[in-house]
């Protein structure tokens, strides 16, 4: 799918990159980037319940590696990478728990999408139900591309895989979503 065919969602992250002296500690980084990490997490998981917990986990991991970042401008991308990794792990865990009948199918009826019309809400519910059947990696790549509007190269960086793998994963999830929307 060509990138120009999509109306991409603007990133909620700040427009200008922070300077080193602006981010003196974890608290500053958290206050600045928590909404951005929260948005990524919510869009990948589709459920609000776990967002707070997962966002904290992202920043706990960030706390151990923050000092090693040479470029303060890289914080945003790095946090996104951590968020993607933790979300993928969480999706796999849920999938395993559902397989082991320890957990029920998630209910997307209460999607946190204030301002969405009933039709948009229905569309999102159908999409997330379809994505539940997709492999976690494919779901993440698809959401980053179609919902978050990221470039393929950025997705490859976030998911730490090749461009070809990203395309393959998006195609896998796309088939499932198209199937669900066609019925």
């Amino acid at each position: 799918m060509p990138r120009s065919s999509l109306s991409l969602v603007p990133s909620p992250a700040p427009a200008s990159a922070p300077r080193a002296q602006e981010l003196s500690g974890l608290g500053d980084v958290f206050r600045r980037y928590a909404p951005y990490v929260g948005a990524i997490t919510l869009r990948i998981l589709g459920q609000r319940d776990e967002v707070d917990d997962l966002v904290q986990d992202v920043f706990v991991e960030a706390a151990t590696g923050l000092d090693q970042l040479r470029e303060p401008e890289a914080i945003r991308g790095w946090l996104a990478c951590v968020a993607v990794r933790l979300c993928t792990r969480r999706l796999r865990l849920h999938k395993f728990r559902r397989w082991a009948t320890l957990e029920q199918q998630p209910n997307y009826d209460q999607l946190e999408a204030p301002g969405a019309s009933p039709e948009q809400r229905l569309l999102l519910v159908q999409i997330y139900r379809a994505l539940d059947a997709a492999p976690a990696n494919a779901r993440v790549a698809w959401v980053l591309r179609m919902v978050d509007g990221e470039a393929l190269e950025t997705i490859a960086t976030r998911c730490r895989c090749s461009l070809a793998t990203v395309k393959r994963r998006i195609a896998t999830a796309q088939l499932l979503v198209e199937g669900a929307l066609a019925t």
Partner: protein
Amino acid sequence: MNARGTQIADAGRHLQVHWGPEQLMLLESSLVAKVARQARQRRLAQLSTLVVVAVLGASTWLLYRGAAPAASKPNLASASGAVAPRNPTAFRLRDGSKLEVSENADWLERTPAADPSPHVDIEVLRGRLRLSVVPHQPGEFRIHVGEVLVEVIGTVLTVERQAHEVSVAVEHGRVRVSRGTEAPTFLQAGERRTFVGHAARPALARDLKHVASAPEAASVPPAARPAPTSLREPSWQALARDGEYAAAYGKLHLDSVADVPGDLLLAADVARLSGHPAQAVKPLQRVAREHSADPRAALAAFTLGRVYLEELGNPRDAATAFRLTRSLQPGGPMVESALAREVESLARAGETQKAQALAQEYLSRFPNGSKRKLVQRHADAP
């Protein structure tokens, strides 16, 4: 598919997380606690690994020594009354105690070799020493590390002197540690204490001159390593802001904390995050009750509830604190969390009916609330 892609992107734009300032503050406070907890766990894991390695090493050494008693004994030098050579590994003092000295460590025994008294005075100039001290009467075996004085009866301990801190760790037995005019403390096996910002005792320079008459002393002139004489010690607030909660707690006198919400909340954080949750109660209560007009009063009440519920196992008082949170900010963003926590507290306190009624209130006020699953359980409870 182009149109469909646009539809998806438009719909996805509405998927946003909305946190109010207080919620963000709560998340941040909880994050800081989580990071501190993980750091503690990491240190504990490192310590455990160290202990396991030490035990394995000691076992191996004992086995090896048992197999070849004469050849494998360490070369222990007698060091009485002299500055230690540069890179020794082990020494035996005249009373039979053993010293293991790290590389680049300097020390001296201040008691002259001819002194018939049982007193032993060791001065650590820099670096780390591990001492296996044979049994002594109280006050007979003393270790001076800058301003810090360690009195040993019979034990195994490690002392380390760095540029701005002195640490004492006890492996076996018990030692008495004091610094200047501070009240002495006792360290038991497995305990460790670090003194930050120590200064050299003025008397030490005189003593060093006296000892320097020994031939070996020329290689380590005392004047070459002057210890800092006046180090400004950081305040508990500065330590707390640097995340050094344990050190900050050591300097914190809760009764003398200024009666301003900022300091009281910081003091509560120091107490909580250094593992003294009970000490956090008083400052939090003061903010919540005596500074109820302050916008942080509700946060203090909420934190108080969490301390009672999660750390002190007191759900009844936790419920009261969460109720106070709601009354302090009736329409505030913390109401939902406080209400859910109050339900949980009441349920844990055995107040099932009250918990059930409050759970119904939560579900009717916040049908899409983030804690609805948890609260629903209490609402459905038989």
